[in-house]
């Protein structure tokens, strides 16, 4: 451990934290777009008919599209000079990763949103509120998945770790550094899951009280 600390560059921790902030930034963008698109699809599926079939088909395709392949597709298949309403549409690395996560986040939000809308329609506010912990879970999955950006040179947390690992000579030191990375990613993730658990238990208690009152 001491040899690892001696070999770590002085600015490793600040660089890693900045990198992790990029992971969170990617997850926020992917979830924000996923929320907008996913709720539209959930409304379409709830409505049924032709709109429902179209929305369900779109969700099936989005659920099946692998994030890593979507990322390379966006990176290579979109023309460099593409524009939208006259605005240049050159995607940055961060936006490419964020957009590649949108199919997953939109499909997930659509499923969770559909459940929530059905609960809401049936008069179960508590059931509908389960949407919040479900979306929080998706957010943490997106944070972890955003590490795919390392493959296209986005300087996120894992990229910083891998660049540092290249400068270490022994396998033991590299494995220790990777373990450090797991701990650093694990802390917010496990805190997030603990928070989700708390919210779910609280909603469960409220549901029980509501059921007793209605009985």
């Amino acid at each position: 451990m001491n040899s690892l600390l001696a070999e770590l560059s002085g600015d490793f921790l600040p660089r890693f934290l900045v990198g992790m902030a990029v992971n969170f930034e990617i997850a926020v963008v992917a979830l924000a777009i996923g929320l907008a698109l996913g709720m539209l699809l959930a409304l379409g599926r709830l409505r049924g008919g032709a709109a429902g079939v179209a929305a369900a088909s779109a969700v099936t395709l989005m659920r099946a599209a692998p994030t890593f392949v979507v990322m390379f597709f966006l990176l290579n298949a979109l023309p460099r000079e593409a524009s939208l309403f006259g605005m240049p549409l050159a995607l940055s690395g961060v936006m490419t990763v964020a957009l590649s996560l949108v199919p997953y986040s939109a499909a997930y939000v659509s499923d969770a949103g559909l459940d929530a809308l059905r609960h809401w329609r049936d008069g179960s506010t508590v059931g509908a509120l389960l949407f919040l912990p479900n979306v929080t879970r998706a957010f943490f999955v997106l944070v972890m998945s955003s590490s795919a950006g390392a493959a296209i040179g986005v300087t996120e947390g894992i990229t910083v770790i891998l660049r540092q690992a290249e400068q270490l000579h022994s396998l033991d030191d590299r494995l220790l550094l990777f373990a450090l990375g797991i701990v650093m990613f694990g802390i917010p993730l496990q805190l997030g899951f603990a928070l989700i658990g708390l919210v779910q238990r609280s909603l469960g208690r409220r549901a029980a009280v509501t059921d007793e009152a209605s009985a």
Partner: protein
Amino acid sequence: MAVARQGSDELARALDLISQIFHRDGLFLDIARSQRIGTTFLEQQQRVWRKPECNTDSGATNPACVLAPLAAELKPTPFAGAVSAFESWLDSHADIELSLPMLKTAPAWSMFQEGVLNSLILIVGALIATLAFALLFGAAMGSRVAPLRWLARLVTVTLQSSPIVLTLVIAAAIVHAFFTYSDAVALAASIAALGLANGSNAGQALSEAVWSLRAERTTARGFDLFTRALGRSATQIVAFLINAAKGTPIASFIGAPELLSALTDITSFSSGRATTYTLLLVFYTVVVIGVVWLCGKLRLYLEGRQRRAEAVA
């Protein structure tokens, strides 16, 4: 080694002799071995440069010692003409600019075929590994032996906390420390990493089902309890199986020679990036839809078994 065409005769001669000596004395071979990369070519070159007729200061000019110049022109496939005709027909009739470089040259076609095959091997391997690790972790975390349960839980939390890219890199680093790099080793490391990452999560769902059945004071014990827990956690297990199949392209990050990797190589010496990556997206989406369909059948089978077991109980 390439040098400038003019005014570099002495540099070229020096580089020739250095390479010749490094091959003969095994220096290149030692470096390759220390980095655990394939040595077949270097071993063959060492044998060549140790021959008396090659181990001379003029060996580099002897055609029996040096390799033939690389044929830079790519050999077309037998159906390259038909592919080009189809591209032209589509362009003229439907105004669609389609480019299929993977079907037009022999090296690209061979890489494409290998990529598809390796992708399918990777997907099947990842599914089997995920299921195997799910059963293993499920049994350990559902066990009444506390130390076994805690150990499995610790490994699961660690794997959950590790982004998949990092898990793959760790698997690759460990595997490369013990084995020489090869396509098979990269595929095996990827299958292990994907199986562990998804199997641990599925195993957690399985163990939760075991504990929930125990909490309901079911009469089932041992293997019977485990199979009923499999039925109860079928949805979660299937979700992680699908996740494993979807995650396979990321194996290209550690050099697994699957389709993404193969097509990226093909686009480095040919045009048609847009078509190539569109086809790649279609390939993986169709394969994952197939996996989803098969996993749906598995889920129905497991849930049906559970319902029948509950009806008997």
